C-alpha cells in the first residue's frame, strides 16, 4: 500500500564481491568457490541453485565465516550493512550472527537442542542477548510461533524437539531465526528434508515473512521448482562459479547460459506424459574443484563450446541490466533452436500401452488384493513388557488392492510415512504380510523371500534409493553384477564376464568400470550399477524405491531415461515409488496415490493429473514446486501432518486434513464416521471419497499454465 519500491532503496543489505573460498586438503588448496558476486536488498530473496558440490553451501557458510577448520576466504569482499565482514574477529562475527544474521539449515535438528524444550530454547535467544524478562520472552515466542503458522503453539513450547514433526521443527527453527529480526536470513536447503505438502506451506511462510519483515534472504536449493516459487532473483552456480544471475521470471523464460538451459531441459514437467518425451540430461558431470578445465568451466559439457571457450575463462558480464551470465556466446545462443545431440538415444517413443483402442490390456502380472502389513508396536504400558496387555499395530499398509498388467509401470506417490516402501518391501518379501493376497504370475508371494522359490525370486528384483548404500563398498562393480548372474544361472559361467560387460553397456557405462570400487563412482554411476544388477536376472517385475531422489537433476534425467529404455527393451513391468509427482508422471502408465497405508486414488496417469481429483491428490498437485514462475497453482494447503498410523483416523483417514470436506453436507460429518466408497471414474480410474464424482469433476484444475 505504500510507494516504496521493494528492496531497491539505498544500500543492499549484503554485497558479495569477487568472493573466493578455498579448503585446505591433503591435495593442497581446493578453490571451492571462485569469483562470486551478488547483492541482496531488503525484502528480497536471492535463490542460489545448482547441482551438488557446486559450492552453494560454501558460499552460505562463507558469508558468516563458518567454514570449519580447513576453509577460508582467499579473495574478495563481503559487505554487510556497509561494513566489511572479511577479517572481522571471531567475537564480532559471533555477535553479528546472533543479532543481525540468522541461518536455517536443511536438518532442523542441527539447530535445536534435543534435551531442551522448544520454548526454553526459543526464549533463550531473547533472554540471553537482550536481557528480556522470561514471561515477556515467552509471549514473544508464542507470537512468533503463531506467525509461522504453527498449529497449537502453546503446547509446542512445552515439547521437546523430537516430539514434533519434521515440518514443525523446521518452523521452530525459522521462528527462532526470526526472533532477532535479522537483516539477513541465510537458508541452506531448508525444505529439502520435508514432504511436498509441508514444503509448500514452509515456502509460503518464507515468502510472507520476507514481505512482512523486510528481511534479505539468501535461499539455497538444488530444486529449481522451489527456487522458482520463493525467489525474486536467481543465481545459478556451477563448479564454484556463478554462471547466471537474473530476475526469476527472466531466468526461467529466457535462460542465457547453456548450463541453465541444460538444467531446465533435464526436468520432468508435470504436463509431460510418458509418451510425449524423453528427458535431455547434460552429458558428463561436474568437475571436481581441483580438476577444472582451463577455460570456461562448463566447456567439457557444453553443446556450444568452441575454441575460444577453451582459451579463456569467461567473466560474469551483464547482458542487459539485471541479467548477468558467464558465457562468451550468451548473445548468440538460442535455446529454442537446441536439438538433442544425435547420440542421445531414440526419439520419443510410443506409449507402452496397447496401441489398438479396443484391445484388452494384457493380463495382470501382479495382483494384489486386500494386502496388509502391520508392524508390532511395543506398547508403552508395563503389561506390554510381559507380553500381556494389548499389542498395538502400526498399520503401514492397510488393505491395498491393485493389479499391474505386463509391461506397464505403476507409479506410487504419497507423503513420507504413507507406506509406499513397506508395500514394496512386502511384495519383494523383505517383510511378511499380515493379511490379504498377493499373486505374481500366478504364484502366491505371500511369504518372505527366504521361503520363496528361486525361480520366483529371480523374476522379482528391486532398485534402491540411496546410491551410497546400494552397492557393497568391499567389492568391485564387476563382482557385484556377476553375483545375480551366477546365482540365477542366467548365462553359462564362461560367459558371465561378457554378460556383465553387456549390462554395463546397457546402463551406458563402459567396461573399465568392471574393476572399480563403489567409492570411485559418482552417485549417478552407482545408481546405474544398481539398475544393472536388478535387471541382470532379466526379471519380469522390477520394484523401484525412489531410485532417483538422491540424484542431481541432470543425473536424474539420465537415470530416468535409462530405466525407461531398459524397461522397454526387456518389456519389464515396473512399480515405481517416488515422492516427486513430476517424475512419476514422466515414468508411469498408471499412478496410485497412497495416504496412511491406503490407496486413495488409482488410474491411468493422465486421469490422475486432471480433474476429477481425489482431494488428497489435489492438494499434492497444488503443492508440487513447479520450475516455472508463470504457472499458477491453486493455493490449497494441508493442515498439520500425517496422523500416526498407529491409530489412524476413523472413516476416511484423510478427514483430519481434508480441505474439500466442506463440499459435503454438514461439513463432511460422514467422512469421520463412514469409510468412503470406491467411485469409478471410467477408464480404470477409481477414487476413494464421499464427494460425488460430478462435484469433483466440476473443480478447476489445480495447475494452470499460462497460455
Amino acid at each position, binding site marked *: *500500500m*505504500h*510507494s*516504496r*519500491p521493494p*528492496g*531497491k*532503496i*539505498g*544500500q*543492499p*543489505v549484503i554485497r558479495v564481491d569477487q568472493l573466493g573460498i578455498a579448503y585446505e586438503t591433503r591435495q593442497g588448496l581446493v578453490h571451492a568457490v571462485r569469483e562470486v558476486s551478488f547483492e541482496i*536488498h*531488503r525484502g528480497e530473496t536471492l535463490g542460489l541453485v545448482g547441482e551438488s558440490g557446486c559450492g552453494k553451501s560454501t558460499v552460505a557458510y562463507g558469508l558468516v565465516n563458518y567454514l570449519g577448520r580447513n576453509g577460508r576466504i582467499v579473495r574478495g569482499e563481503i559487505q554487510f*550493512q*556497509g*561494513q566489511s565482514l572479511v577479517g572481522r574477529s571471531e567475537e564480532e562475527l559471533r*555477535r553479528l550472527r*546472533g*543479532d*543481525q544474521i540468522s541461518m536455517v539449515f536443511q536438518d532442523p535438528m542441527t539447530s535445536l537442542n534435543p534435551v531442551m524444550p522448544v520454548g526454553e530454547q526459543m526464549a533463550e535467544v531473547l533472554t540471553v*542477548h*537482550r*536481557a*528480556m*524478562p522470561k514471561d*515477556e520472552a515467552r509471549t514473544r515466542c508464542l507470537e512468533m510461533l503463531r506467525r509461522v503458522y504453527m498449529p497449537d503453539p502453546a503446547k509446542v513450547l512445552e515439547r521437546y524437539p523430537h516430539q514434533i514433526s519434521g515440518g514443525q521443527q523446521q518452523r521452530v527453527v525459522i521462528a527462532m531465526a526470526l526472533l*532477532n*529480526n*535479522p*537483516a539477513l536470513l541465510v537458508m541452506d536447503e531448508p525444505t529439502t528434508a520435508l514432504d511436498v505438502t509441508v514444503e509448500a506451506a514452509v515456502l509460503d511462510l518464507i515468502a510472507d515473512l520476507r514481505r512482512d*519483515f*523486510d*528481511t*534479505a534472504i539468501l535461499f539455497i536449493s538444488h530444486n529449481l521448482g522451489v527456487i522458482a516459487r520463493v525467489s525474486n532473483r536467481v543465481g545459478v552456480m556451477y563448479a564454484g562459479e556463478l554462471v547466471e544471475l537474473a530476475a526469476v521470471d527472466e531466468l526461467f523464460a529466457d535462460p542465457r547460459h547453456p548450463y541453465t538451459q541444460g538444467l531446465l531441459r533435464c526436468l520432468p514437467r508435470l504436463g509431460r506424459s510418458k509418451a510425449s518425451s524423453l528427458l535431455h540430461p547434460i552429458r558428463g558431470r561436474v568437475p571436481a574443484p581441483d580438476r577444472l578445465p582451463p577455460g570456461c568451466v562448463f566447456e567439457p559439457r557444453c553443446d556450444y563450446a568452441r575454441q575460444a571457450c577453451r582459451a579463456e575463462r569467461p567473466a560474469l558480464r551483464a547482458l542487459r*541490466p*539485471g541479467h548477468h551470465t558467464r558465457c562468451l556466446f550468451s548473445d548468440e545462443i538460442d535455446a529454442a533452436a537446441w536439438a538433442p545431440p544425435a547420440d542421445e538415444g531414440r526419439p520419443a517413443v510410443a506409449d507402452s500401452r496397447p496401441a489398438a483402442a479396443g484391445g484388452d490390456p494384457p493380463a495382470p502380472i501382479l495382483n494384489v488384493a486386500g494386502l496388509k502389513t502391520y508392524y508390532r508396536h511395543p506398547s508403552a504400558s508395563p503389561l506390554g513388557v510381559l507380553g500381556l496387555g494389548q499389542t498395538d499395530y502400526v498399520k503401514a499398509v492397510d488393505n491395498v488392492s491393485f493389479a499391474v498388467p505386463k509391461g506397464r509401470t505403476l507409479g506410487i506417490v504419497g507423503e513420507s510415512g504413507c507406506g509406499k516402501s513397506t508395500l514394496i518391501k512386502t511384495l519383494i518379501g523383505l517383510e511378511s504380510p499380515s493379511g490379504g493376497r498377493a499373486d505374481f504370475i500366478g504364484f502366491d508371494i505371500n511369504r518372505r523371500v527366504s521361503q520363496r522359490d528361486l525361480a520366483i525370486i529371480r523374476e522379482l528384483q528391486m532398485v534402491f534409493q540411496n546410491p551410497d548404500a546400494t552397492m557393497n563398498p568391499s567389492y568391485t562393480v564387476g563382482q557385484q553384477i556377476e553375483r545375480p548372474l551366477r546365482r540365477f544361472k542366467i548365462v553359462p559361467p564362461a560367459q558371465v564376464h561378457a554378460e556383465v560387460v553387456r549390462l554395463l553397456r546397457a546402463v551406458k557405462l563402459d567396461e573399465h568400470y568392471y574393476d572399480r570400487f563403489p567409492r570411485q563412482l559418482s552417485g549417478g554411476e552407482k545408481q546405474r550399477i544398481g539398475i544393472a544388477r536388478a535387471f541382470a536376472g532379466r526379471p519380469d517385475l522390477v520394484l523401484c524405491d525412489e531410485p532417483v531422489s538422491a540424484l542431481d537433476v541432470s543425473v536424474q534425467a539420465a537415470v530416468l531415461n535409462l530405466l525407461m529404455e531398459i524397461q522397454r527393451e526387456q518389456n519389464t513391468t515396473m512399480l515405481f515409488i517416488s515422492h516427486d509427482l513430476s517424475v512419476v508422471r514422466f515414468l508411469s502408465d498408471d499412478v496410485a496415490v497412497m495416504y496412511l497405508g491406503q490407496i486413495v486414488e488409482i488410474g491411468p496417469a493422465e486421469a490422475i493429473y486432471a480433474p476429477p481429483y481425489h482431494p488428497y491428490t489435489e492438494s499434492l498437485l497444488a503443492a508440487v514446486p513447479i520450475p516455472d514462475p508463470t504457472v499458477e497453482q491453486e493455493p490449497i494447503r494441508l493442515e498439520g501432518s500425517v496422523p500416526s498410523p498407529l491409530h489412524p483416523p476413523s472413516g476416511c483417514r484423510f478427514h483430519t486434513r481434508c480441505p474439500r470436506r466442506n463440499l459435503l453436507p454438514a461439513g463432511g460429518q460422514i467422512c469421520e464416521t463412514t469409510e468412503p466408497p470406491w467411485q469409478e471414474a471410467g477408464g480404470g480410474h477409481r477414487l476413494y471419497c464421499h464427494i460425488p464424482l460430478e462435484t469433483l469433476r466440476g473443480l478447476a484444475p489445480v495447475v494452470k499454465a499460462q497460455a
Partner: protein
Amino acid sequence: MLVKDYMTRHPILIEPRKHVTDAQRVMTEAGIRHLPVVGDGKRLLGLVTRQRLAIQPHQLASLDVWEITRYLADLTVADVMVKGPDLHTISPDATLEEAADVMIRHKISGLPVVEAPGNIVVGILTETDLLIELQDLLGAVDAGWRVVMRVPDRPGEFRKLVRAIGDKGWGIMAMGSVRTPKDPKHWDLILKVRWCGREELLDVLRGIPDQEIVDLRETRPPAAGPAAG
C-alpha cells in the same frame, strides 16, 4: 499509518567502540544521515548524525594542529554519539503524527525506532519517510486527476462531493482536507480521482452547488526510483 509501516527496517548499525572515521565512511557510502549505535542484542546506545561528526568549534579552538590529528585518531563512536536525554526515539506502534510531533518539537530529522523492553532497534524513521507518507496520502503515486474544491464550513458538503463522484462509478484514490488558509469559513478538499476523463469530471464538479473548483490538474506517478545494479 503507523511508524512500523513506514520506517526503514534493518537500518545500518554501528558499534560504540568503532572509530569515528568508520562511522563517517559508512554514512557517506550508504548515503545516510543517521546511524544508530547499538550494543549486544541491538540495544540502542546512541545515534550518530552528520552534525555530530563535525568537530565542534569550541573544541577546535583549544587544540593545536598536532593535537587535532591525535584527537581525531582517538575519537570513537561512543564519544560523538547523541545520547542520554538528547536521544529521542519512537515506538513502532506509534502513529506517524506522533513521530512527526517529536521530530518537529526537537528539530531533528530522524528517529531510531525501538521496541521495549530493552530498547531494541527495529528500524529508523526519517523525514524522507514522512514525506513518503505525505505522497501516499495525496495519492501522488498513481496517475489521475488532482482536484481541489473549496467548500463552506458546514455539515454535508463532504458527502455531496463524494456522492457526486461515486455515483459515476469513478474511483477516489486519496483525499485530504485543510481549513482554507486565511479563510476560516471554508475548507479546501483535495482529492485524487481516477477512471474518468477531464471534461466529464469538470461537468460533475460544476454541478455541485456551493462548491468551487480551485484547481484541477492531471498527475502522473513520479519517475521510477533509481535502477539498482
